[in-house]
């Protein structure tokens, strides 16, 4: 099926209690990563500004750790681990060399948009067009799950 391209861990959705759809698996993992990290942060109380950044880092880290089947999560982890040190990593393999489109106006637009997409996706710089489209699909899904998880946490706390 076409969706298998995007949903790489496609499972049979059965009624057995042991088998869970991937969205649940992801959410569980995410929360199990995030909550202990937040707890830890709670323990060592630092100043609010730093706290914000670290929370964001933890949030991203939890995302990357919960979705390790996907390529972008590896890049995200790399970025996070190297964000402690000053980074010079971005090897920008220009997308122009990878898209074999003709260079008329319309395709130029598309190339620009693909470049933007590359920037949005962690690790997008090093992927070609096909990979970007695939990875963007599951990246969006995981982002959505992440937002709903975060929302629930925040709302439950207020």
């Amino acid at each position, binding site marked *: 099926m076409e969706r298998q391209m995007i*949903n790489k861990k496609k499972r049979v959705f059965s009624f057995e209690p042991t088998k869970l759809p991937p969205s*649940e698996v992801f959410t569980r993992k995410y929360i199990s990563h995030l909550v202990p990290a*937040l707890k830890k942060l709670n323990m060592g109380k630092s100043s*609010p500004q730093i706290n914000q950044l670290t929370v964001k880092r933890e949030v991203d880290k939890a995302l990357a750790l919960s979705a390790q089947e996907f390529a972008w999560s590896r890049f995200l982890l790399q970025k996070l681990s190297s964000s402690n040190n000053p980074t010079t990593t971005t090897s920008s393999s220009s997308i122009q060399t990878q898209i074999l489109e003709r260079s008329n106006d319309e395709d130029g*637009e598309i190339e620009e948009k693909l470049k933007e997409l590359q920037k*949005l996706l962690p690790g997008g710089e090093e992927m070609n067009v096909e990979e970007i489209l695939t990875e963007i699909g599951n990246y969006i899904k995981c982002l*959505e799950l992440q937002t709903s998880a975060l929302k629930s946490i925040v709302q*439950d706390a207020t």
Partner: protein
Amino acid sequence: MDLSVLERVNWLQQQQMVSPDFFEILGSDGREELKRVESYLGNNNDEMQGFRHYETIDGCISRTSSFQMEQVKNNEENRVIALQPKRKTEGKTEKIENKKKKIKTEDETESSMKGKSNMSNSETSSEIQKRDYIHVRARRGEATDRHSLAERARREKLSKKMKCLQDIVPGCNKVTGKAGMLDEIINYVQSLQQQVEFLSMKLSVLNPELEFHINELSTKQFQACFTDLPEAVSKQPMMVDASSFPLQQHGSLDYSLINSNQTTILSSKDQTSSSWEIHSQCLYNNLRTDSVSSFFSHK
């Protein structure tokens, strides 16, 4: 020259008659080699546009064809020509088969295929077997050389993926064309990332006040939550005020995907006193019932 259906049928029969002799010449491995060559031809021919992967003659469109052989080298080829009866259609056949042989002897170099042939499209049925190649059907009027075929296959893959993305990203259905869809996708990803940032900021503000009882809940309870869904009774429905979420300035994007499933269904078994525990159960119930999970199970 246009061929009538009858002539074409005759030609085919003749061809089947001829091919055993032809293969004899090639030797025991000849048939295999020819098949290999033929399948190679199927992927790469400027000149062999006549051979498509069609099974039946009936769908054929007859067109004029002229074929120029540039290089005739081997003695074997001459022998082949001598063997075949002289019909105009078979003249074409033999030339093509000679060409195949020549390709075989030249180790299937692409240079042998390029040439100054003036052959226009003529579609006839062929006995080319199906191999493990990526079959891209060459449509009428389209080039069938290797590069075009590969690029067409690539383009079809890309458009397939775009279609999948269309299903994921809400609001993509209304827009057509790659550029518009990519725009929507970019906007959606950006808005999702902004949401995450905002939520994490909120979380960092609230962090000291949170009590994390989540570790006290056992896995068993979670499983019970999931499996009890059909029997669950809604005790404390939690409706979230969607308007309180400030990042809704993108009117075109549909956030129902995220905001729609805020009602919770508590299983009657798991009545706990701690409000956080109830809320964390709600958390899992929320995330289970939404359309996001339906995507993963949807084929």
